[in-house]
């Protein structure tokens, strides 16, 4: 389902630290890279995606701009209040195109994915699309 909008599977963004009503966090899950969520200043920044059920995750693909250091955490239905680090990555800077990063993870199940943007290459960073492969 790497090319499908996560929102059509009932996934939702349940928390985001920034909001510009022209660039809401739902834009991350609509499957389009034209629309984006834009952070509105200071780090860290985070958003949390909730799946309707436990979901198997083996690859996470992120389209973004000016994100530097990203950490991804997950939890499961069984242990809802405990987030575990799944992956941590330093993205390369791009000039005139989006950053595209595929992050392989262990294929375990998750109900929430938490994306923690620890630093950026600019004051403001954007996330255009997150997709997940089972």
């Amino acid at each position, binding site marked *: 389902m790497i090319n499908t909008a996560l929102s059509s599977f009932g996934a939702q963004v349940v928390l985001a630290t*920034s*909001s*510009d*009503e*022209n*660039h809401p966090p739902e834009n991350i899950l609509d499957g*389009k*890279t*034209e*629309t*984006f969520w*834009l952070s*509105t*200043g*200071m*780090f860290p920044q985070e958003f949390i995606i909730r799946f309707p059920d436990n979901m198997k995750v083996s690859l996470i693909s992120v389209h973004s*701009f000016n994100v530097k250091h990203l950490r991804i955490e997950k939890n499961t239905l069984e242990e809802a209040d405990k987030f575990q680090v799944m992956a941590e990555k330093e993205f390369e800077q791009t000039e*005139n*195109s*989006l950053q595209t990063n595929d992050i392989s993870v262990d294929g375990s199940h998750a109900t929430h994915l938490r994306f923690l943007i620890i*630093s950026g290459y*600019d*004051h*403001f960073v*954007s996330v*255009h699309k997150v997709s997940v492969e089972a």
Partner: protein
Amino acid sequence: MVKLRARCILVGDAAVGKSALSQMFRSDGAHFQKNYSMTAGVELLVKPVNIPETSDSVELYIYDSAGRETFAEACEKMWGQPSVVCVVFDISSLASFNSCSRWLQRVRAHCNGLQVPGVLVGNKSDLSSRREVEETTAQDWAQSQGLQYHETSAKEMENCDAPFLSLAQAFYTLYQERRQMIQTLG
């Protein structure tokens, strides 16, 4: 509607009036501390600023830092990544003006090469009879560093909002520029 957040690093020599200025701004002129009470570390003040003619705002997180050299290192550890910078001197003290370039360098060392809007503030404009720094001198140096220059008097409640409003506005402009740029990428 958008609410931005900016980390504003406030620096300058001891006793130039950084705390007085930021407290006047935060309290809308209700609070001027006449007796000097040295800042030993960093004091955080938060205030939202509305951007004129929009429904948007910038929330300023002001890091009022100690001017005393003994605290400098501890202060720097708390700055994180600055969004905007405010360097203050006392117009009746040439020494405090001469320190500004060192203060600015210190903050810029934490900016990771990012463009960080800044202002230079000549405070204590009420002490004009003892003025040691001419307005044009300060203005010229500010311009050479890409800073906006403002003169204030925390004591007389003169112009205290101006430096912070101009920082908020500059950060807001930067946001709009970036937003437009990113819009062309997707």
